[in-house]
């Protein structure tokens, strides 16, 4: 299942969730080992006061955490991994960095730690999240795949 910008998906067992061509956006992977359930959110923009659109990190992450909880996951047990937030052009506005900071703030405000991250830099990423074991395969352009 591919996850579009500003959206999230939740999968179970043998399903694989993907976010293709992440540039300055940030992919947030959540994994519930007990239930072999995973969620992937494709964050477009940092949190902003008064904004209620799922484009923003706070709104989108609130939705994915809430749905994971409603499905029976214990939020404190979730494993979190984050990817993306690159600066793709030389004359860049710092949206990638701001996305990373905002996502980290949202994660830590829930008392969670980030188990793995591959963020920043100047290259795009594609990620595949395996809902059964929580493994994430990361591909960067012109380099091979890596498993987290």
């Amino acid at each position, binding site marked *: 299942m591919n996850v*579009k*910008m*500003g*959206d999230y998906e939740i999968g179970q067992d043998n399903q694989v969730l993907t976010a*293709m*061509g*992440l*540039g*300055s*956006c940030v992919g947030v992977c959540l994994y519930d080992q007990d239930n072999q359930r995973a969620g992937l959110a494709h964050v*477009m*923009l940092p949190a902003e006061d008064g904004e209620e*659109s799922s*484009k923003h990190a706070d709104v989108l992450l609130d939705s994915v955490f809430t749905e994971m909880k409603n499905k029976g996951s214990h939020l404190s047990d979730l494993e979190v991994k984050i990817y993306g937030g*690159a*600066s*793709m*052009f*030389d*004359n*860049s*506005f710092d*949206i*990638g960095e701001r996305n990373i900071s905002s996502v980290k703030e949202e994660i830590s405000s829930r008392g969670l730690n980030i188990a793995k991250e591959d963020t920043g830099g100047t*290259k*795009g*990423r*594609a990620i595949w999240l395996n809902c059964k074991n929580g493994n994430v395969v990361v591909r960067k*352009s*012109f380099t091979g795949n890596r498993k987290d």
Partner: protein
Amino acid sequence: MDINDKQKDKLREIGNIGAGNASNALSKMTDEKIDIGFPGIEVHEIRDIPEEIGNRSKIHSLVRVEVHVERNENESIYLGTLMLVLDRRSAKILAGHLLGDTENIDIEQQLTESEESALKETGNILTGSTLSAMTEWVDLKLKEGVPDIKTDMLGAVMDEILLKMAQHEDEALLFQTKFNFKKDLNSYFIFLFSRKGRNLILEKLSV
């Protein structure tokens, strides 16, 4: 979104003239015949735009030039971003033609610095010819930024352009036309208009 069919047609007409000028410029640079496809002009959700152009995860080269409308000395409005988008193979072939070296094109190799420079310069020239066509129609002082090039996954190279717009709106007006060069090249000329910029142009056109 506040745009009707008549306005869309008018923008298509302007875009078409701009793309026509751009294709003539490209034709002169490569000494090859360049045809342009029927231009598409549609409002899309910003999050859907990369898929409208191609496969998000495939490698593309994207040359981007930001365009502003200068209202006065102290005020300029972001009109939108012009883009030349080429898949990996097309970028190598076009760069080879621009540099006059069509014998040794290896499409498996990454773009060299001189190939990137040639494509960047092409973006500059295409933007210039498009904007001069637009200026005749809309009587606005248009100012182009410095061209930038990046080769990476399509979704990734488009992110910053889309996120800049997404800060203020959910949908964007996408003008895109395909350049048919050597028949099988996948190259697109794209103008993504911001809402403010688009409204300014429509106001000027009184449609």
